[in-house]
């Protein structure tokens, strides 16, 4: 059986969501036709990338997971470099070409790579493995543009076998030119959405590739009745995810209107978050409960300005639940625009206006629910994603 490798910064079944889950889903989709190896590190947390898991091999559902020790994790030094990157962000993002450098603080490729290397997880052993065994694999799929496992890994293998799944966001570090040259090494770039591809085109220019997306579960689940209408948020509670703003908007909405609606948050225990009678933090829940809550929600809200796919949004749509999303995320806005399955908001006024309509107009909600499910079935079933993925693997 032909072999495929998937390189990802960390992998463990306790890590929910994100590019780690994507790597696993692709491994499962490809596992029927190929011998799949996941090449990753012994890190478990993305704050320090400390070596926690044992180095070596693990077999899971027929997929081999190789874990290599982290040589360089994330230290205070990286935070110092990153602080400088943030300071220089406006200058860096304007730096389309070196001819404009007179107006900006300049980051050499060496300095950019220093920032990427010390962001972690940098693994000498993983890179040496790639160098030694690249010819064993028909393709090597690198997941997430950001980390040194992908950045340096792509320089150790031949371009003709390299597929990149960037999960790209429009964020300051993405403006480092080094990533552009890394991306250009890939034989093909696999995007999760058309909107992400547009971000890629803007930052890196036109690159060969296609939108492959992620498989979304479309099994319908009986709704969970919590006794009163609720908005559901699914994900981490983190300022970067826009949840501070969501909670602020929700509290203001409750204060100004008489709407009997609650906000239910799952995926995070809410430690350090504001307490409010109508906000419930349910923490981590099992998959079945998550889908049941999605099915039972009046609507699902996704406040994150940085989403490269938003699996939770699509899973809610598959349960025929309308969505209310932050328009700052091009990906979320595209899902809503293409499907008609919800509304977008950009500030409190648009948030409140959309919420009022969605809470009161049940016919509109039903129609949006139908449209959302049709959209997911048309684009994101496992069969469709596998077909696109296989085409890319076999393209050479």
């Amino acid at each position, binding site marked *: 059986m032909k072999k495929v490798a998937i390189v990802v910064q960390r992998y463990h079944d306790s890590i929910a969501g994100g590019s780690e889950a994507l790597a696993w889903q692709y491994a499962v989709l490809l596992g029927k036709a190929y011998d799949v190896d996941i090449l990753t590190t012994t890190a478990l947390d993305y704050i320090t990338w400390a070596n926690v898991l044992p180095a070596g091999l693990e077999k899971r559902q027929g997929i081999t997971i190789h874990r290599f020790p982290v*040589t*360089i994790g994330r*230290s205070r*030094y990286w935070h*110092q*470099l990153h602080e*400088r990157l943030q300071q*220089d962000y406006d200058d860096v993002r304007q730096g389309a*070409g*070196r*001819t404009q*450098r*007179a*107006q*900006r*603080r*300049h*980051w*050499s*490729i*060496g*300095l950019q*790579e*220093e920032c990427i*290397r*010390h962001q972690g997880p940098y693994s000498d052993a993983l890179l040496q493995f790639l*160098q030694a065994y690249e010819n064993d694999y028909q393709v090597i799929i690198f997941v997430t543009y950001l980390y040194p496992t992908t950045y340096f890994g792509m*320089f*150790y293998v031949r371009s003709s076998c390299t597929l990149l799944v960037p999960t790209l966001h429009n964020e300051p570090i993405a403006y480092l*030119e080094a990533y552009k*040259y890394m991306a250009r090494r890939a034989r093909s770039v696999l995007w999760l959405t058309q909107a992400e591809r547009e971000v890629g085109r803007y930052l890196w220019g036109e690159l060969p590739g296609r939108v492959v997306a992620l498989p979304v579960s479309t099994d319908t689940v009986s709704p969970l009745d919590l006794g009163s209408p609720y908005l559901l948020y699914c994900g981490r509670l983190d300022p970067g995810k826009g949840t501070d703003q969501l909670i602020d908007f929700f509290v203001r909405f409750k204060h100004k209107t008489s709407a009997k609606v609650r906000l239910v948050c799952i995926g995070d225990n809410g430690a350090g978050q504001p307490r409010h009678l109508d906000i419930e933090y349910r923490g981590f829940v099992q998959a079945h409960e998550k889908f049941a809550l999605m099915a039972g929600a009046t609507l699902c809200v996704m406040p994150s300005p940085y989403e490269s796919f938003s699996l939770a949004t699509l899973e809610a749509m598959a349960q025929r639940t309308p969505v209310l999303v932050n328009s700052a995320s091009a990906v979320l806005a595209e899902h809503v625009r293409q499907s008609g399955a919800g509304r977008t908001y950009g500030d409190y006024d648009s948030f409140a206006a959309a919420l009022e309509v969605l809470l009161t107009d049940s016919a509109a909600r039903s129609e949006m629910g139908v449209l959302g499910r049709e959209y997911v079935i048309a684009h994101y079933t496992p069969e469709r994603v596998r077909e696109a993925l296989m085409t890319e693997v076999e393209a050479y």
Partner: protein
Amino acid sequence: MSRIAILAPCIMMADAVSNDALGMYQVLAAQGHEVRLFADNWEIAEPKVQHVRRLQAYLKDHSSLLIYHYSMGWATGLTLLKEVSCKKIIKYHNVTPPEFYDGISDDYKNVCQAGRNQLNAIAHVGCDLYLSDSEYNMQELIIVGASRDMSMVVPPFHQIQRSMALEADLAIVDAYRDDKTNILMVGRVAPNKGHALLIDAFAVYHYSYTNASRLLIVGKKDERLRVYTEALHQQVQQLGLGKAVIFTGEVSEAALKAYYLVADVFMLTSEHEGFCVPLVEAMAMKLPIVAYGAAAVPATVDRAGLVWQESDPELLAESLHCVIEDESMAVAFGAMGWRRYHQLYTNEQIAVQFLQALNGLL
């Protein structure tokens, strides 16, 4: 397993010959051999270095092996080489031709002259193997009589991997991370390094292309070479480049790394190099190179930069301009250098070449 002695006149910190000796020590020790370092002077605590007078007692067995790092005239070394009856290897790092020190330092001139004089004896001392840092060095040895069949090129071990992992001095990154183009040269402030051409080329670039530029000359100054150093400072003043040319003097490892990180181009105009480790450091950091191609320089760089046979400041300045203005060219040279580094010059690659060369002697 064999008993092996590695000998050099001195083993110091941040010194290319010493780093090569230490690299050999580590590789051979990891293979399970009994290895010791010997020198007349040393400034490192680990691994332990023993005085050269203990060498003969250590190498009493015929099956033992002596590896002598040759880079300067040293009577003790030559005598030992003639007296010991074990297997012998020379690692030739080249000797700077004494004429570079004419009118600058009689001491240096004499040491270099002695080194050149001994080269003939070294080539005829009947060694089992002559290793050279570069093809250029190897040809010098063959010309003076070393056996071609017993001559091989093995690049020098270095500390680049350690440098890649350490934290750079961010005060230097902050000082030079600005809107100016940074041209970097790394090496001792010594007359074979061609600083006059370097400064002339930079002057053309600075005045003809962009005065938002600076030249960072990173390297130890030597009081015994004051005549040379003062002449360079005078040249800088005469060209009105006092604020644009920076002589850093000797720097820490963290500072050296910071200078590489803020540099846009590495420029080398040496007139004599036996290999030039800073070129490899630049390649490892994906830094494009512009160089005058004297001695071993073209072979070390290969296609990782613009290397010219002419010592022409205008040509070098134009080369700087091309590489700096065309980002894709700079990135391509950087990538070619990085590839060359990984194919030939990592310590792991050098260890493979070194152990292959020693095959049959251990």
